[in-house]
């Protein structure tokens, strides 16, 4: 197995996983979405809310704000020394005390921990009008994507199988495949149909349907093109690495269970 990075600007990455299999590719994809812990607001104490939004809607909006944090500093709540009650090593409070008229942004939250702050400072949370007031304490904790989508470190996280396209001797150069292919995989060169862009093929098999000579051979390879976009809490590389760690520890757990049998 080998990983080949095509494009990586930190938060939007494309890479090819070579010589693998669908089971592993999908395990990795799912681990990136649901086995990498991320900080998000999960509990909100509202002392005063005279805005036009209900407490529930406001709390929901606050929960969706991505928070970056130092993952080494915090425990998962159910594995914490406090036994899940909540303590400074498993949760962080973000306070908000504002009066209208103004727009309240995610950057207005005052965090107890200087390393746990919103990824973006300019997310409009709520608009307060004359005389409206907001006083609340939002409690953030670590969680997994399988619990709630706000704990997902990635938004887009997909893969597709790369194709192998070959044209054999029986080709009559009828060019029907050139016209029908939506991804422009084929081209005509010196009266012969040639494969020019195998990489773009999505295995739609439209070319097989129009080819009367059955001259096109389409096969799935063992290569997978991943497209991953991070929400912003950490870079895609780190998400991918942590996901692999999660798969590894689960596999090791499985091994020890098998040995006990």
């Amino acid at each position: 197995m080998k990983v080949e990075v095509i494009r990586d600007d930190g938060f939007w990455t494309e890479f090819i996983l070579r010589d693998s299999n669908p089971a592993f590719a999908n395990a990795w994809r799912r681990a990136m979405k649901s086995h990498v812990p991320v900080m998000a607001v999960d509990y909100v104490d509202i002392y005063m809310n005279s805005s036009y939004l209900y407490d529930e809607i406001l709390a929901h909006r606050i929960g969706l704000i991505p928070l970056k944090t130092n993952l080494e500093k915090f425990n998962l709540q159910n594995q914490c020394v406090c036994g899940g009650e909540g303590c400074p090593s498993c949760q962080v409070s973000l306070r908000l005390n504002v009066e209208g008229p103004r727009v309240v942004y995610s950057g207005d939250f005052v965090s107890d921990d200087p390393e746990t702050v919103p990824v973006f400072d300019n997310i409009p949370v709520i608009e307060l009008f004359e005389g409206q007031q907001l006083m609340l304490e939002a409690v953030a904790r670590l969680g997994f994507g399988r619990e709630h989508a706000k704990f997902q470190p990635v938004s887009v996280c997909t893969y597709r199988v790369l194709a192998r396209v070959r044209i054999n001797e029986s080709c009559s150069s009828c060019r029907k495949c050139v016209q029908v292919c939506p991804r422009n995989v084929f081209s005509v060169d010196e009266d012969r149909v040639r494969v020019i862009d195998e990489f773009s093929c999505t295995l739609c098999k439209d070319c097989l349907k129009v080819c009367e000579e059955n001259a096109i051979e389409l096969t799935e390879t063992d290569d997978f093109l991943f497209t991953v976009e991070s929400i912003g809490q950490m870079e895609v590389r780190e998400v991918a690495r942590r996901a692999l760690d999660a798969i590894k520890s689960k596999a090791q757990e499985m091994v020890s269970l098998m040995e006990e049998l």
Partner: protein
Amino acid sequence: MFPVRCFTCGAVIAHKYEDYKGLIDSGKSPKEALDELGIKRYCCRRMFLTYKSVLKEFARYHGAVG
């Protein structure tokens, strides 16, 4: 208020809303504005295109409450 995240893909979009509004006010078409802000997927693009603020409407009829 503008949704914090895209309903479909979950990407954060609200931090670009005020830039979007600025571009629209400066005379750009929604397409140009969204392309400039790098909103690529159509799920996220429709969030901007179909948004209508109701909070300001509330304020017109209710006045301020304390």
